[in-house]
């Protein structure tokens, strides 16, 4: 009953014009960000953070979450029509979605992606609504040692699942931790890595860092590719899927919804991994395996449902444990902290109105997403006519205004430029940037729980090996890193064996 009354209160709030407007604006901007190749959701949301300062906490959360799931869907439009994923989670959609477009079936591909996203998003909210409050008592039982171990595990999983070399992921993560301790020590006010400057005493400004790492690095990357013209696009044609296409989409949407939600719960999980897993599952269970890669509608329905469901799933660890599971969530966490809201074990009990309004906003947002995307698909397709040579100079200006507006600080702009160069070099040499951002956001809490634990135990590190939860979490974290090192070795050995067999 508590759920229903909470949800009713949430709807009563969200249906007020200013919150409906925030939901609409969030979904609209998110879809736009997703449609435009080159501006991912992380850079897009980060750019918009300074402009949420004028909003209240509810509007901020509603708008930013709308941007997130709007971007997840918007990316599929670009994938299907021009074979360039608007954001990483849509890479998989491009395989069969673009093939469908080439066969003159762009409309059904876009419609199935929209309907799948809507169904998955709506069902996943029910899971979120039931699971998040149920996790609160568990989260509240955590002391500083458990909190520390949980964050170590979260960061380990994020490193493993960021893809590529685990060593590079760990380096990225440790760089994020190091950057986060720059500034005055919160307990003793001792300067740390400030080089005697007053600007660094306040620490590195997160918006400047993230906008540089994602936004400016994106601009520098675009200059490298030299693709400055408009994107070529296919005709959309008939929009609704026929009976056969609809029948073949039902199973993948259902499986994608469940898989996506579960994967979204994991730190480091989210869009791209859920899409990959869903695609693999659909290919495995399909009776039309040979159609995959040649325009199978299951290859669009499953991954698109999974990545939208994962978006919702990722809010569970954020709202109950204060643990962002990916870089977008880290940015949303930052925006909420700026608003004076601290997601964590007490978030739902201390802010029931905000939580239930947020849940209701996701239902509303999913309806807005469907309305914006099905009838207006032609409008979104026309956005792709904006040439990159016009788009990126506008992004350069937004980056500049966005960073400056936070503190009116010229130093923040310099930090953004340096971060942009670092982010670009990291991408060029295959260092994942997401672990850096997650570590940067989580380190203040990580260090605080580490020091509180040692304060409670009078400096005895044995506190991290007491009880069942802390050691279990830490051992799992070590095992996760171990798996990260072992997997490439196993793959290399298999490849060698195969080559020897062939010889």
């Amino acid at each position, binding site marked *: 009953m508590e759920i229903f009354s909470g949800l009713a209160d949430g709807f009563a709030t969200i249906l007020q014009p200013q919150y409906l407007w925030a939901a609409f604006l969030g979904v609209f901007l998110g879809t736009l960000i997703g449609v435009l190749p080159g501006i991912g959701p992380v850079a897009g949301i980060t750019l918009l953070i300074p402009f949420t300062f004028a909003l209240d906490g509810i509007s901020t959360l509603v708008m930013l979450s709308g941007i997130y799931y709007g971007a997840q869907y918007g990316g599929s439009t670009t994938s299907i029509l021009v074979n360039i994923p608007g954001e990483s989670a849509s890479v998989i959609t491009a395989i069969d979605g673009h093939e469908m477009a080439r066969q003159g079936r762009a409309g059904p591909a876009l419609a199935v992606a929209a309907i799948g996203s809507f169904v998955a998003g709506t069902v996943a909210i029910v899971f979120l609504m039931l699971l998040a409050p149920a996790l609160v008592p568990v989260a509240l039982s955590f002391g500083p040692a458990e909190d520390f171990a949980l964050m170590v595990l979260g960061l380990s999983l994020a490193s493993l699942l960021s893809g590529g070399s685990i060593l590079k992921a760990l380096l990225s993560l440790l760089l994020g931790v*190091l950057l986060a301790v720059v500034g005055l020590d919160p307990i003793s006010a001792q300067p740390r890595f400030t080089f005697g400057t007053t600007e660094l005493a306040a620490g590195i400004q997160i918006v400047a860092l993230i906008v540089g790492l994602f936004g400016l690095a994106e601009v520098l990357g675009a200059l490298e590719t030299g693709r400055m013209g408009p994107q070529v696009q296919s005709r959309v044609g008939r929009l609704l899927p026929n009976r056969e296409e609809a029948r073949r989409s039902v199973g993948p949407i259902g499986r994608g919804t469940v898989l996506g939600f579960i994967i979204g719960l994991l730190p480091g999980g989210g869009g791209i991994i859920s899409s990959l897993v869903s695609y693999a599952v659909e290919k495995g269970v399909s009776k039309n395996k040979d159609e995959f890669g040649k325009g199978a509608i299951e290859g669009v329905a499953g991954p698109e449902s999974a990545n939208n469901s994962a978006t919702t799933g990722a809010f569970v660890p954020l709202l109950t444990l204060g643990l962002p599971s990916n870089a977008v969530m880290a940015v949303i966490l930052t925006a909420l902290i700026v608003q004076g809201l601290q997601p964590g074990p007490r978030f739902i009990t201390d802010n029931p109105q905000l939580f239930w309004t947020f849940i209701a906003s996701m239902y509303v947002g999913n309806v807005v997403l469907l309305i914006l995307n099905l009838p207006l698909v032609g409008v979104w397709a026309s956005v792709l006519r904006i040439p990159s040579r016009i788009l990126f100079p*506008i992004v350069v*200006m*937004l980056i500049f*205004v966005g960073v400056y507006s936070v503190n009116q600080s010229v130093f923040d702009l310099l930090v953004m430029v340096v971060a942009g160069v670092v982010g670009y070099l990291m991408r*060029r040499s295959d260092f994942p940037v997401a672990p850096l951002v997650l570590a940067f956001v989580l380190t203040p809490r990580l260090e605080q729980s580490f020091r509180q634990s040692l304060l409670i135990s009078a400096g005895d590190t044995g506190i991290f090996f007491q009880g069942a939860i802390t050691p279990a979490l830490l051992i799992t974290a070590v095992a996760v890193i171990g798996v990260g090192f072992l997997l490439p070795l196993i793959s290399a050995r298999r490849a060698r064996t195969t080559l020897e067999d062939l010889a």
Partner: protein
Amino acid sequence: MMNITLDKAVAALFLALALYGVYAASQMPMTLGSQIGPGVFPLGVTIAFAVVAAVHLALALRQPEPMSAGSSDEPPQQDASLRRQVAVLVTLLIAVVAVTRVGYAVTMTTLVAVSLYLFEERRPLVVAAVAVSVTAVSYLLFVVTLGVRMPLGPTL
């Protein structure tokens, strides 16, 4: 496509940064009365950073250099890209210095115009129209509507 030489350079840079971090953290107090001091956490992190960076650099140095591609059009293209990237960064740095002196309108119009040129939009009328209109719209949206505080220039 990963660049092996760049990978080694980034790995070396990370190791140098980590070693400096270990040195700087070791100069911080390790105790604070009966509590652990502000240096313990950074020291632990920088040591771990240095170890991982050293292992990564060692592995990167074992990677073979890529074969020379011979004569191709890529190097001149890469040089052109690099020049444009550096030009964008320099333009941004000039804008950083200029914004508090000449204000939002002049800085943003110039920044957008130069960026358009660097992104190969060379039609003067288009450059002027986009630079002025984008600056005007952004001013109305951010400064007037959203109340974002931006320096408006010496005369305002």
